[in-house]
């Protein structure tokens, strides 16, 4: 039991992202309103961004900006002092992609509303079956 508790507590960032991802998936699958599904999709993508950023962290490390600007060229830089910048770079791209997907999904939701006059999935389905 103590081992299990140690595992859960030491890897809390992984548990965090798993919980977020499951919440997002739950919202996408179970909820009937289209906007709630879109929000669930956004939560799901945010969980993955959270995961990437969390794997770049190191103990006692600071943000990856070398101080003393231009004139400190010979200033020896210890890579151990800085957190890993590559996940941050990748996640800038992923955030932009998630915003773009959100924009397209909302535009489609507006088109659906103009066509069916409702945003609830069961009302739309009943309209489709009648046709």
């Amino acid at each position, binding site marked *: 039991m103590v081992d299990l508790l140690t595992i859960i507590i030491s890897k809390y960032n992984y548990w965090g992202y798993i919980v977020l991802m499951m919440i997002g998936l739950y919202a996408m699958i179970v909820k009937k309103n289209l906007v709630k599904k879109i929000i669930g999709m956004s939560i799901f993508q945010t969980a993955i961004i959270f995961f990437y950023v969390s794997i770049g962290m190191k103990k006692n490390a600071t*943000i*990856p*900006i*070398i*101080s*003393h*600007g*231009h004139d400190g*060229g010979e200033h020896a*830089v210890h890579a151990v002092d*800085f957190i890993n*910048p*590559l996940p*941050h*770079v990748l996640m*800038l*791209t992923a955030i*932009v*992609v998630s*915003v*773009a*997907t959100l*924009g*397209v999904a*909302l*535009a*489609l939701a*507006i*088109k659906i509303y*103009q066509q069916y006059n409702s945003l609830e999935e069961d009302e739309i389905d009943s309209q489709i079956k009648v046709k």
Partner: protein
Amino acid sequence: MEDTSVPNIVTAVLADYRGYDTMFETAVIFSAGIACLFLLRQMKRKKTDFRLYRHTATGIIFRIEKGGKLPPTAKEFERIDGLWTPYDLIIKTTGRFIIPFIQIFALYVIAHGHHSPGGGFQGGVILGASFILFAISHDLRSALNRMSEKLTAFFYTLGVYIYAGTGALCILLGANFLDYSALATILFVDPVTARSHGILIVEIGVGIAVMAVMVILYYNLVSAGKFDEGL
């Protein structure tokens, strides 16, 4: 640091080492803007649209169907939206005070991306947010007066041309695509500083493009493509 003379490692990696990814990221945001435009934009007005006008002196609201006559003395009547509230002093004045500072901060974030957290994307989003704040606190038509659709589309394409053009320029000057050290010959600096300048040019391009896309997305979504009424 020795390669690019840019202290902010994240910006250096984003715009130089993996600059190709950043160009595609700009293409992603560009295609999202075009997709929104493609899906929603309606050029012609439909038959069922109506417009609301309000007489300023008495507060009576008129409703004019399509094809109806506009009121004769336009000065006494102002066009209102479907969800209209009376002139709100607090919001409008606060907006007018804050928006210039937001824009200056956004430009600072773009330009200072080398030395502090920031860069093209972050600054572009803040700049776009300032325009959206203007559109929310006033109404959509006054925002369209200031930042019309054609102007936004111009900024949009300008931003991406700057990025891709820099890359193409590097090919024309002999090196591989997006190899900024080739810019050293035009800018008369050594190759390392040329990389730093190349990163700055590219970040400016990205910032402009992101700002324009945020604004276009907001315009399209809030007016469902018709560009005349909004929040």
